[in-house]
């Protein structure tokens, strides 16, 4: 699977799709492969304030449980509750399965994230 060019990536294997002052956050194809079949996602409540790099929840497969880290600072404005009953969506479509939407409080942080080419090189 290729890494979409419109997304920004972190070394912790999250992606963010930024549009205006908002960004949708998910985990990468590499991350879902490492985890294996996802069976639970634990996500924060709307209104939770996050700083860049802070854990905002957990994602769990039969094999392991993994922390989720926010690529940017901001406030959680939306949570993808549909994943609670269909966590396997993260495996089927990792770059289309967003976990939370964040209202960015420091737009400058996005500049420090990896682009698709750099991320792909990282996980090779």
């Amino acid at each position, binding site marked *: 699977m290729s890494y979409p060019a419109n997304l920004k990536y972190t070394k912790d294997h999250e992606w963010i799709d930024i549009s205006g002052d908002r960004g949708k956050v998910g985990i990468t194809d590499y991350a879902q492969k490492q985890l*294996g*079949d996802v*069976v*639970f996602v634990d996500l924060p409540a709307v209104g939770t304030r996050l700083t860049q790099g802070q854990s905002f929840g*957990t994602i*769990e*497969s*039969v*094999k392991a*449980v993994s922390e989720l880290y926010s690529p940017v600072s901001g406030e959680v404005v939306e949570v993808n509750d549909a994943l609670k009953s269909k966590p396997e969506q993260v495996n089927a479509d990792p770059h289309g399965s967003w976990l939370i939407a964040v209202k960015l409080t420091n737009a400058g942080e996005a500049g420090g994230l990896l682009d698709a080419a750099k991320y792909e090189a990282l996980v090779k």
Partner: protein
Amino acid sequence: MVEFAGWDMPVEYSGLTQEHLAVRSAAGIFDVSHMGEIEIAGSDALAAVQAIFCNDAGKLQPGDAQYSAILTEAHTFVDDVLVYRLRSDHFLVVVNAANVVKDYNWIAERLTSFGDAVAMDATSRYALIAVQGPAAQGIVQPLTGVDLTSLNYYSFAHGEIANVRGTVSRTGYTGEDGFEIFVPPQQADRVWQALLTSGQPAGLIPCGLGARDTLRLEAAMRLYGNDIDETTTVWEAGLEWILSGSRRAKKEAPQRKLVGFELVDPGIARHGYDVYVAGSATGKVTSGTQTPTLKKSIGMTYLPTANASIGAEFEVDIRGRRARARVVPLPFYKRSR
């Protein structure tokens, strides 16, 4: 790959869930060569085996295998093992990889009080390949002259497998029908490839440690180091059925009991998570997973006997959140025969 008792082992090949389901519905092949083998031989071997292991090896005919254990004086587990009677005066004991040295020393020390009995650590002489699942017999039979239809559960026979001399045993650690095949390590690759080729049409796939753990847990088979060890007694672990008749005479009502549980709340109660009964800590989850067959979160833990009845509720601390759990009967999964 993970390091396991000095061996490099795959957690999964194609994916844990897929591997688990293949064993339940068709078949899986496991490289379990990490298991240790200790041979005990001599005209006093039976007396020695009877003294060192807790089950009654006198019931075994050559060609029979038996689940047994080495117990301390306090009836806690030094190891749980399979005892194979190769000949009337020759036994093969399959032990846990992490315990080979400890077991060998334990056995050797006790053999000094028996006349003609010697022990040998034969671990490096055996590779062990397990083929497990309802399709296992159909996969192994074309490759061996051993008549598998007449091989009962917990029996074994010597013969050729894929033109390699070895031993086929109808045993396993998955809760399914299946075989464990002992071959010389030099030829193990050839046997593995032949089995894989023979099994492919039936859906056989290679399986790693991950699926081995979820399969054995569904079948409530205890894992040494997790569910049983030198701090848990044979009665607490619910394994008193492996005590020989004379050892069974002494009965002990345990203060705590190993139980199976299901989580009522969402989450996975993993090995080492704290367990609470009515707010007080009682111990830890000894094994826990999300079961691929049953799609539930299951596990085992030791509970005070008074709180261990079926249906009793307690709590597991899942990374700071208390999740409700309920005691259920063991095993979680039983194959239909």
